[in-house]
């Protein structure tokens, strides 16, 4: 079954923060931001399918264009209060780029992806919702 991942977040064009490596290539991706951080990510493969493993290519930096780190990625279904049965592993690719490998959504519905990011002593959890049909 092919499933389109619906997007609830806001899409931003990156040019305003040219120093931030938000371009994930292929002109695709979702941007999540807070007061402190800017983050972009793209699933691989681009279409997330129920029951199929996928990875996330992630870029993160501070809003001032400084370096930041991705510590962990997880996901859960807030309505049903259960998480994934899989644990993602993070690989740093340098230049604020990371890859989270080994995610799998086992059910259609709303999934909240959480990204734990850090810059220096400051850390924060960013979230993004995806609805799998």
């Amino acid at each position, binding site marked *: *079954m092919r499933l389109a991942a619906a997007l609830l977040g806001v899409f931003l064009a990156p040019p305003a923060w040219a120093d931030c490596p938000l371009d994930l290539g292929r002109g695709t991706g979702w941007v999540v931001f807070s007061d402190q951080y800017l983050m972009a990510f793209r699933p691989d493969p681009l279409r997330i399918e*129920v*029951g199929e*493993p996928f990875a996330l290519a992630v870029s993160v930096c501070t809003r001032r264009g400084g370096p930041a780190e991705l510590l962990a990625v997880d996901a859960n*279904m*807030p*309505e*049903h*209060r*259960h*998480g*994934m*049965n*899989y*644990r*993602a*592993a993070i690989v740093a690719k340098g230049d604020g780029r990371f890859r989270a*490998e*080994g*995610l*799998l959504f*086992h*059910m*259609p*519905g709303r999934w909240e992806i959480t990204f734990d990011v850090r810059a220096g002593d400051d850390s924060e959890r960013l979230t993004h919702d995806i609805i799998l*049909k």
Partner: protein
Amino acid sequence: MIRLLLLLVSLLAAGAVGVRAQHLLDWSPEEIKAVGQHGPWPPPPARDPSNKVSDTAAGIALGEYLFNEPRLSGDGRMSCATCHQAGREWSDGLAKARGAVELDRRTPSLWNIGYLHWFGWDGAGDSLWAQSIRPLLDPREMNGGPTRAGELLRSDAALACGYERAFGNTPGTDDERLLVDTAKALAAFQATLVSPRTPFDDFRDALVAGDRESASRYPLAAQRGLKLFVGEANCSLCHLGPRFTSGEFGDIGIPFFVRPGEVDPGRHGGLVRLAASPFNLLGKYNDDASGNNTRRTRHVQRQHTNFGEFRVPGLRQVGRGGPYMHNGSLATLEDVIRHYSEVSPDRLHSDGIPLVRPLGLTAGQGADLVAFLRSLDAEPVARPSPAPLCP
């Protein structure tokens, strides 16, 4: 005789009128999309990169012989086909499988098994071939011991020849390798077991194509049941896709006591066994050098909630099988629907919005769901007996 014929003719006529009088319910674009996701059928042949003889003619041929081979068992009397019977939808019709002793779980059907990623009710196997090793060794099942497969492949001329055709060399002296290769041939054969197209598939294709006339041949009760299945009853949350399973695990409140004081831990125990198995995809017998097929095994995480979870069964040919559930505790499809209608919320271990809740179906709705499930059944094409391995 003539009376009987007349009766038959009038029954057929009544049937024909029934068909003509039927029509199509209103299907919204969202519903059509949801129904469309349960097809198309059949899927392309299953290929397993961890198994070099998967989807090869010689591997499949050898596997079919081995599947029916009682000499693989300790007492020479039991084969895979003893429990997974072609005429019984590749199961045995029993509530609990009977090997050397009665087992704690039901024999699952092997239809469409090649498309799964986790095997066994508890997902203890991460490949079809790894799952096929267990019954060969398990003392409660075939009890073949670790060397029997190797001895048989070396000593039987036809099997040795079939082995050489499939694997490219004569059977060697490494018994563990030959046990794994036996399982890989068995897996190649089992992956060809694809269930036939059904009345549901004809309806699904017609609905998606906008062919109202063909679609209206699908009985109204089945249409109503299908609407419930993808809609209000939310069955397709877990029974999704063309095979009607996510391939993952769930807890629908089937009691998992095996004996007083003893429970079947389900997925929780399966993950322990998976990690301990020398035959899992992280081990040396995985034929896929890319490692792409190891992602599930590498990243799967045992959680407390896995306790009492069992794999979501596919629903094709379900009405021709039964009894139902991992322990065969429900005898009929009607019993299954009654379970979903009346399941006690106390049995469901969920803090949030429960995935399964007592649906409180009317008798009519229950009958409609059963009518829909039965439309996932069709008479399989009889298998020709296999050609000789090495004529």
